[in-house]
């Protein structure tokens, strides 16, 4: 009798702990909507999303976040252009070419990269990379989308590399053996069997890397330049959504339209990352069915 009730107690304890994150998520969503939606009493949603001017403190104030959305997108695309080849490439190297000893040295090093605080990356970018690119490319100012993309790309490498390597490890040995048995060489096995079989995991790795880039705040605040203008090239300064919230939330009067507008930006960001996560989930399900993998 004692044992059963104790078991139940422990079960419900863990149940509560597990639902804790769900409660937090719901709470955050609720607050985002509650604090973000009031801004649409002042601007309509199309003016907000499609507006090209962000002058939150001017009189009359303008709340157009298109330049901010585009700033985030440009930086994300740029970072992925850097991070996908490097991240997937290092995963393939670790998995296929590096021997046990080399891997046991390289993998922890790549993972240390993930442990560096983002403000350190930001400082490094601001003080070293930005002036370097400014001289190298002869651009007016080194704080631009390119610099931000480069640094965020480096920051996302450990996420992408680590998850992609895990995905490659999950491919059953039998797949590879079957491929060799049919006479395929190592390259053919890799490109036609192993990578497609790990495709869902690799896509998930890329998308989670993207989520990391979209949500990164401190680094872009320091290196992206912060100009709320629609970017025309990677050499233009941009102002991503996260940097806008971080820079202005401290000074916006609580309950003012500006305050609600910043929450509404948070809502847009949340929708962005939610779409990424749903897409990641869908891709991995689709591949799982196609390959008949049991995981």
């Amino acid at each position, binding site marked *: 009798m004692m044992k059963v009730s104790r078991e139940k107690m422990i079960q419900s304890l863990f149940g509560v702990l597990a639902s804790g994150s769900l409660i937090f998520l719901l709470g955050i969503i609720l607050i985002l909507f509650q604090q973000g939606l009031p801004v649409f009493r002042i601007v309509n949603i199309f003016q907000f999303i499609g507006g090209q001017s962000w*002058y939150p403190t001017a*009189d009359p104030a303008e709340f157009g976040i298109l330049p901010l959305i585009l700033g985030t997108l440009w930086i994300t695309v740029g970072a992925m252009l850097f991070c996908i080849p490097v991240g997937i490439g290092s995963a393939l190297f670790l998995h296929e070419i590096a021997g046990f000893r080399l891997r046991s040295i390289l993998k922890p090093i790549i993972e240390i990269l993930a442990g560096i605080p983002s403000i350190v990356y930001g400082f490094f970018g*601001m003080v070293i990379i930005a002036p370097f690119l400014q001289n190298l490319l002869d651009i007016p100012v080194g704080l631009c989308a390119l610099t931000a993309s480069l640094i965020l790309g480096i920051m996302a490498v450990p996420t992408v590399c680590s998850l992609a390597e895990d995905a490659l490890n999950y491919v059953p040995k039998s797949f590879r053996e079957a491929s060799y048995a049919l006479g395929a060489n190592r390259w053919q096995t890799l490109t036609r069997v192993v990578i497609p079989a790990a495709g869902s995991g690799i896509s998930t790795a890329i998308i989670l890397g993207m989520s990391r880039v979209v949500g990164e705040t401190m680094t872009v605040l320091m290196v992206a330049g912060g100009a709320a203008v629609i970017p025309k090239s990677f050499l233009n300064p941009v*102002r991503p959504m996260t940097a806008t919230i971080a*820079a202005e939330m401290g000074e916006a009067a609580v309950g003012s339209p500006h305050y609600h507008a910043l929450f509404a930006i948070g809502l847009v960001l949340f929708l962005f990352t939610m779409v990424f996560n749903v897409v990641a989930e869908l891709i991995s399900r689709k591949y799982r069915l196609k390959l008949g993998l049991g995981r």
Partner: protein
Amino acid sequence: MKKLSNIIVLSLTSITLALAGGTTKLRVGGSTTVLPIAQLAAEEFMNANPNVTLSVQGGGSGVGIASLIDGTSDIADASRAMKDDEIKTAVAKGINPVAHVVAMDGIAVILHSTNKIDNLTIDQIRKIYTGKISNWKEVGGEDRKIVVLSRDSASGTFEAFASLALNGEKVRKDALMNASNKAIATTVGNTPAAIGYVGLGYLSSKIKAVTVENITCTKKNILTKTYPLSRPLFMYTNGKPKGELKNFIDFILSKEGQELVETAGYVGLK
């Protein structure tokens, strides 16, 4: 973090004092520019006078003045003088606002140390910041695109700069909006084509402060208001302050209080 710890200290002190009873409560609110001064002064003042509780808030000059008029605060911090209609509303409600200048605020316009330009007029500064001038050659410099740096539009320094130099016009969209004075000073120091503005305390050898209308940005010129980008910072009270309210204002104006003003990054009156 400093701010946060100040707030924590303030609130802890106020809780303790409220429990102890027999205290004078003073409410201070308004301009975010004056906020650091008010916070530092309140902290020191409450250490010396445990029977007084000061609650300090931001919100902006307009908000502070409105709450003084409503009677919901005892001191309104303002980074501008009260407007005529604000004074009329106050008088209509039986409030008699008295201004106390507690500090001076000066904004230096800075360029990269290699930039040959030494002086800019207010008109040139406005045209550069609003987008009518985009090349240094238009103000007598070399043929180079100007990189414009500004503080975030929610900051007090921006508010001051906008009212003193921009005449309420909007900053060009491609201006790099920075979250701190330090970031502006660093970027201008690294960028030959840049122009920026910072508080007097952020000048260094890597950057060059231009003269504005041929007047150098020095403490002396700010105090005499001959430097164009300078302004007084106010605390407004209802009528001549009495009792602890008077003690607090006197404390800010004392030598010790004015040292706190300098700590907060502004120009002390003495």
